[in-house]
């Protein structure tokens, strides 16, 4: 079997291929436990106005920033300019230049705007950012983003938080086939089996949030996703057996205990 050398994004090495989002957890304790159980090394966060009427709104103090790479997103951005502004604020906050680029003008399906995303990506790469763009599963857009220098592409499996699984499978297969940067399948993975399916196809990593955060036992679900990602990756590297329409007996077809 080919050895897994781990996930490399913009020259940085990660053993874990499961990225985890921090939204929707019932408490910072539940979030911290799930991150640990997931074995995640990259953790996404959002940027919002400080709630000056609530002094306890800093839920992220539970995350050890030495241990995890904090990956800020530009959620809430409706166009390239808003995403660029959020990216710069995020860089000032983290001191690092990694950004998960999200431009989602449509609040109902939260689908990413391909034109504004490409525009923002190009500008942010020029400004020195390591850009991880969240996109619809569009192979042409993926190529264009790679051409302008994004560090990954992050095609969606299905709408954010929908838990519908890998609805965009055939397009993601093409993206993986053509990619020369890591492909991180993001959004909509609702079950560990969905994550395993993406990894079996050859995705480099997956990002999961809602399915873990809103499970009855988030830490247990995080562990299940971790195992599924490892299983899927191992299966991918093992070279899947061929599929056929008719049955192929696994047991010998000779030496039956009968005389006809």
């Amino acid at each position: 079997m080919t050895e897994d050398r781990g996930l490399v994004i913009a020259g940085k090495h990660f053993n874990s291929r499961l990225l985890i989002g921090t939204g929707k957890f019932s408490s910072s304790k539940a979030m911290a436990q799930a991150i640990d159980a997931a074995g995640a090394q990259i953790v996404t966060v959002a940027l919002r106005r400080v709630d000056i009427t609530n002094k306890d709104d800093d839920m992220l103090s539970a995350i050890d920033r030495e241990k995890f790479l904090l990956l800020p997103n530009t959620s809430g951005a409706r166009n390239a300019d808003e995403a660029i502004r959020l990216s710069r604020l995020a860089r000032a906050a983290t001191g690092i230049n990694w950004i998960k680029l999200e431009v989602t003008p449509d609040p109902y399906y939260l689908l990413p705007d391909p034109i504004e995303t490409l525009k923002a990506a190009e500008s942010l790469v020029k400004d020195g950012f390591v850009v991880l763009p969240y996109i619809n599963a569009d192979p042409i857009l993926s190529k264009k983003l790679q051409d302008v220098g994004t560090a990954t592409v992050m095609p969606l499996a299905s709408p954010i938080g929908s838990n519908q699984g890998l609805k965009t499978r055939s397009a993601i297969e093409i993206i993986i086939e053509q990619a020369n940067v890591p492909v991180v399948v993001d959004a909509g993975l609702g079950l560990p089996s969905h994550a395993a399916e993406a990894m079996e196809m050859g995705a480099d990593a997956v990002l999961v949030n809602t399915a873990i955060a809103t499970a009855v036992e988030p830490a247990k679900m995080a562990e299940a996703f971790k195992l599924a990602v490892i299983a899927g990756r191992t299966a991918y590297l093992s070279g899947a057996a061929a599929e056929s329409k008719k049955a192929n007996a696994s047991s010998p077809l000779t030496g039956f205990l009968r005389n006809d």
Partner: protein
Amino acid sequence: MDVLKINGKEHKFADGKMPATIAELLSSLGVDSATVVAELEGQIIERAKFSTIALHAGHSIELVRFVPGG
């Protein structure tokens, strides 16, 4: 009376009571400056300059921080 626009809302201060810097403003609001990023009149202000850059009446300031997200 002096006015600062903080996160899109006007805040009024009695004469002489307006915070002179971002650091003073955060401290008066009880917000830990270690986790906050500020944008003053559209310009990002590095945390190291929170206590040196002067606030003036009429300034618009954004105070943001990381929150849970996916």
